[in-house]
């Protein structure tokens, strides 16, 4: 490259693991989607539909409603691709944030009846066994399960009720009959432990 001795050049190597490479491909695809590239959107769909649908289904439970929410989310990705800012986080995380938020919008605005169903469903969601049940050939599964199992029971239950159950931490405190402040800190230190256990880089 321009006046530099090629022998002296070594490419800097931050983030060359498969996860990082995937993230960067997805960033690139989203940039294409932002410019209206439908072929890129097909590839984005194939990468994101499974994770988005799985997460939504976990929170919403009802297959028909989950499908509706997943459709909304994926179309939001199409419409808002230009607003994805790679300097603020990975593309996958951007989409999972949208998916989770739309899913909890759906369950939190649902009727009291549905919320009662949610309650029993969410309690079931707290079991790591169920995590295993719904996943096939998923490389993240084993690791997440192992890391979830390394948490204290209270940390694990708080996190799974909040994330997979779609509950507010206030509702989690009520469900587990634990003080609000305790739930708040358990969710935080449990997640930090998960982050370190899964060696998440960002």
């Amino acid at each position, binding site marked *: 490259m321009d006046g530099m001795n090629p022998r002296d050049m070594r490419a800097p190597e931050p983030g060359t693991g498969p996860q990082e490479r995937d993230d960067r491909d997805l960033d690139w695809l989203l940039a294409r989607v932002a410019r209206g590239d439908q072929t890129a959107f097909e590839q984005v769909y194939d990468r994101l539909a499974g994770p988005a*649908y*799985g*997460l939504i289904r976990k929170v919403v439970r009802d297959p028909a409603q989950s499908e509706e929410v997943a459709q909304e989310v994926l179309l939001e990705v199409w419409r808002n691709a230009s607003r994805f800012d790679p300097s603020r986080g990975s593309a996958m995380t951007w989409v999972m944030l949208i998916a989770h938020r739309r899913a909890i919008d759906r369950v939190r605005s649902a009727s009291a009846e549905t919320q009662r169903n949610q309650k029993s469903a969410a309690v079931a969601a707290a079991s790591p066994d169920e995590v295993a049940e719904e996943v096939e050939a998923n490389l993240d599964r084993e690791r997440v399960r192992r890391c979830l199992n390394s948490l204290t029971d209270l940390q694990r239950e708080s996190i799974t009720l909040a994330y997979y159950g779609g509950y507010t931490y206030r509702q989690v405190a009520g469900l587990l009959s634990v003080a609000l402040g305790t739930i708040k800190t358990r969710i935080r230190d449990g997640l*930090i432990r998960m982050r370190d256990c899964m060696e998440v880089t960002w």
Partner: protein
Amino acid sequence: MTLLRHDLHTLTGAYALDALEHAERERFEHHLQRCQPCSHEVRGLHETATRLALAVARVPPPQLRERVLTTAARTRQHPPVMDQRPAPKPRSAWIPRLAAVAAAAAVAVAVVLGIMQSATQHQLDRVQAQEQAIEAVLTAPDARIVSHRTSVGGTATVVFSEASHKMFVTTAGLPPLPAGKVYQLWLIAPGSNRSAGLLPAPSGGRTAPVLASGLAAGDKAGVTVEPAGGSPQPTTTPIFAIPLAG
């Protein structure tokens, strides 16, 4: 107050899992804008939540694909969100480039303001001098702006004026480097690479503008990863190299 802050800070986990009620979420987001350690932590916890999501991925109903793709094909996309901060008043000669330059100005000002929040008087004087130099580049009649993704992620933005032989560079979202490594800015030309200084530590993911003068025809602006303190000549492949010519 300290207690309240502490209290807010422990909400990073619940926030990352969308487990706050609406009002609380807004209050926390307001806090996030001013609390860099919190936003850093939230970012890591969001990535962690993504792993929880990936662990429950499942095959979507087959009919969904066709429906989403055909609906997308009929759906108009939103334009990018532009910076809403007031732009400098237009000046005749460079009106066509105003939007781009104003956007760069907003970035530069935001970065400078970010620094000023935690600066001493001495630092403020230096920042002020730098701000004037940046303004001089931005308001040059031939000011141009180029943004580029870098090969390691994140973006680099160069604003330059060929007439005044000056430029400045800001970056957003470059990956953090291991201890003992720095990002170094260069003016790159065949047979003549000149160091233009080291990129400062990022604040909120962005690096403050680094100014350089003495641009020559055919120069590129580029950044390499170098040992702490910088190198006299680049020793690695640039993560970007942007031509500085109209």
